[in-house]
């Protein structure tokens, strides 16, 4: 590179840099305009169509893309020396001096004569050039437009988020969210009631969060993704509480003997939980029975041998039931105390065992209440998601919320409390309690009717004390032709009618009447 070329490069470099910065600024402004316009359109669409608008999640990505884009744009927008020279020529009115000089210096052959004169002329012109004047960096119209769009977007987030046009899918989705919000408030309230009634600590602790989430869903403007996030948070909290309780139950039952095979209980978490509940319930009943007997024995003079015998039987029974080891240890302690004639100690040990079992029962109740609430919150999430997808929105909009847990029909395999959603329901008629997983549009085969017998009960009324006055009013008839010409019914219809008449327990007089009617139409069916 010649000395002149180096000098010209040095003089033009600030202009190149400023032009690149200005171009990158324009690029960034346009990118922001595009992004903000896209987000605004997206936001506007959410008022009509139930699509999520995760602005908070998108913003970091958009910002990162803009930063990377700006860096790339600064490199990409960097003009060549010739372009910068030509821009400077135009803006400073240099009549292509700099552009020609750059071109001449870039040629393979060494410039001579007039070319040298031209380069000298260009260098003196470039020296007098003020880069700030030639390549000013100012806020472009695009930048103002980008700012305006960003403010508009912020305004939408502040004042317009969650708005939905009534009657549109988005409006229906908002209605669904509000309804599920009410349902969640109810779920929370029931959880609270259950917790208070059964002294269930985890249920009491979780109930306010559920109610609060429900209230948030009832807010006038709530977005789909926000609603889904709220409900999922509730589901997560309930799940965490339920898992915690479950772990404690498992710890307590760890020493218990598992139920012997062949009892019909499914080897599933739900089945095991039902088995635990049964065991605890049976153990508690047995304990209460013996504690009652002990109290009666204390009062009526129950002998120590008898007491020890019954405690041994209870211990064996608890062993067979697979009751928790702590309970069995307390019962053993009570038996040994009874054998030693220490009735007081025996009674205290039995009290300990009973207390342990009651605590365990509370934990089981806690887990069941949390599980019920979680399932209902999950159903709410599914309904909101379904409404967002637009599938069955109209139908779901008219369905009531899950105010009550689904009722299982009576059968030989009832739904066990605490059953997990991942567990398929046990087989049996009318036992389905979970949403189907099928994707087909057709309904399945009708559920077979239960084989029960129908009994008709009627209340016989008594005649009143007063007189009855019956008055018959006969209006004047008018002869008119039939609206439809009479004709013989088709053979298959006639056959069906005949069959129906022979099957149903109709009074013979009615049968005759119907037959006569069809006869008048044109023949005996």
């Amino acid at each position, binding site marked *: 590179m010649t000395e002149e070329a180096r000098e010209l490069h040095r003089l033009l470099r600030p202009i190149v840099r400023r*032009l690149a910065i200005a171009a*990158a600024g324009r690029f960034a402004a346009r990118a922001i305009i595009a992004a903000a316009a896209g987000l605004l359109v997206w936001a506007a669409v959410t008022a009509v169509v139930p699509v999520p608008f995760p602005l908070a999640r998108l913003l970091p990505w958009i910002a990162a893309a803009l930063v990377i884009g700006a860096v790339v*744009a600064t490199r990409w927008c960097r003009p060549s020396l010739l372009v910068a020279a*030509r821009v400077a020529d*135009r803006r400073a009115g240099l009549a*292509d001096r700099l552009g020609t000089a750059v071109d001449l210096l870039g040629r393979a052959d060494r410039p001579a004569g007039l070319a040298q*004169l031209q380069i000298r*002329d260009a260098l003196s012109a470039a020296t007098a050039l003020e880069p700030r004047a030639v390549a000013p960096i100012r806020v472009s119209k695009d930048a103002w437009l980008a700012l305006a769009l960003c403010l508009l977007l912020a305004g939408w987030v502040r004042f317009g988020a969650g708005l939905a046009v009534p009657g549109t899918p988005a409006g229906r989705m908002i209605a669904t969210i509000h309804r599920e919000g009410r349902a969640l408030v109810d779920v929370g309230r029931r959880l609270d009631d259950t917790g208070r009634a059964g002294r269930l600590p985890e249920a009491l602790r979780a109930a306010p969060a559920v109610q609060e989430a429900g209230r948030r869903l009832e807010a006038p403007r709530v977005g789909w993704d926000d609603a889904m996030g709220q409900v999922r948070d509730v589901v997560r909290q309930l799940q965490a509480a339920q898992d915690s309780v479950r772990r404690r139950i498992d710890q307590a039952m760890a020493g218990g003997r598992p139920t012997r095979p062949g009892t019909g209980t499914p080897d599933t978490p739900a089945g095991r939980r039902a088995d635990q509940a049964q065991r605890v319930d049976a153990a508690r009943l047995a304990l209460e029975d013996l504690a009652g007997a002990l109290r009666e024995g204390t009062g009526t003079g129950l002998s120590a041998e008898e007491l020890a015998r019954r405690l041994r039987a209870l211990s064996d029974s608890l062993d067979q039931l697979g009751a928790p080891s702590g309970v069995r240890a307390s019962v053993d302690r009570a038996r040994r105390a009874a054998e030693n004639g220490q009735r007081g100690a025996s009674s205290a040990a039995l009290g300990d065992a009973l207390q342990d079992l009651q605590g365990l029962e509370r934990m089981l109740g806690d887990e069941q209440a949390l599980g019920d609430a979680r399932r209902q919150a999950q159903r709410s999430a599914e309904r909101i998601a379904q409404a967002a997808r637009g599938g069955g929105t109209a139908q779901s909009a008219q369905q009531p919320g899950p105010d009550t847990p689904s009722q299982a029909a009576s059968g030989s395999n009832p739904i066990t409390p605490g059953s997990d959603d991942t567990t398929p329901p046990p087989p049996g008629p009318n036992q389905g309690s979970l949403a189907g997983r099928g994707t087909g549009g057709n309904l399945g085969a009708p559920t077979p009717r239960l084989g029960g017998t129908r009994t008709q009960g009627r209340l016989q009324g008594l005649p009143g004390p007063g007189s009855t006055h019956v008055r018959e009013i006969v209006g004047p008839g008018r002869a008119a032709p039939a609206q439809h010409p009479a004709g013989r019914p088709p053979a298959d219809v006639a056959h069906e009618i005949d069959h129906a008449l022979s099957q149903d327990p109709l009074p013979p007089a009615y049968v005759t009447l119907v037959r006569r009617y069809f006869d008048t139409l044109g023949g005996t069916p």
Partner: protein
Amino acid sequence: MSNADRPAADLAAHTADEFRRTFGLVRGELSRVIVGHQELLDLVVTALFAGGHVLLEGVPGLGKTLLVRTLAQALDLRFARIQFTPDLMPADILGTNLVVQDDAGRRRFEFQPGPIFGQIVLADEINRATPKTQSALLEAMQEHAVSIAGESRPIEEPFFVLATQNPIEMEGTYPLPEAQLDRFLFKLRVAFPALDELREIADRTTGPEPAAARRVVDGATLRRFQAFAREVPVAAHVQEYAARLVLATHPEPAETAESARRFVRYGASPRGLQALIRAGKVRALAQGRAHVATDDLRALAVPSLRHRILLNFEGEAQGIEPERVIEDALRHTEAQTAPAVNA
């Protein structure tokens, strides 16, 4: 700039100064005689230094012939005038072989050169001659030589043809063929003088001693300057501008100017591009620059290209002037060649 290069640059600077001074002198001598028409005078002198011929168009009495005569006075060159008439024959222009008898009584053919062998040739009212006679100028204008009886006879340099013509709408005129038009560097329109100019004309021409031009440059100097002007560098982007401008006068290219697409049958020829660049170099030097700028091309586009654009029927019917096509082409080219920074 290295010291070794400095003398060459200084010499070029000196010659460029001399060029500009001489250009100004010739221009000044013309102004002493010709009233007004400043741009016209600039362009005539530009064509002279570029070594191109000029076609002057205007109604009679506007000083076209006076302009050429004054130019011939300002230059120390041989002047010839051809008055074109309908019965003028090519031989009247080029010359002919005559049978001459020497003192010994022997007869031989001797070439009698015609007025075309002058250095400044005024082809007055060129469109009054038939196309055949007009075409006699073709070779002389392009090759600076004349072929007669199989022998090529060079014309002494510098050779400068200034033709005048009346507007073709006037009776008794023959439009110049396209090939002939293409030989002219510029086609200049001589406008009617304004009121002040008319008064000035009256002052200068009706007094006791009409103004006359002095000789300020000789043929050798003019030839040197013509050669020097050819050395003026042209940047690639300026050349591209000129080429795009010429292309924009054509109807065929996909990215041509709209008016060219609608109204032009044939656009400017490559000679138009050459004319633009050659004249641009002279204009640059005259303005104290050592390079051609796009401003030069813009200023010279109309006189360089207007006679090279052939309008189609629609253009003729709508009374479209080639100037409008050129203006449109300039705008189009400007948009195409503007330096753009990405984004």
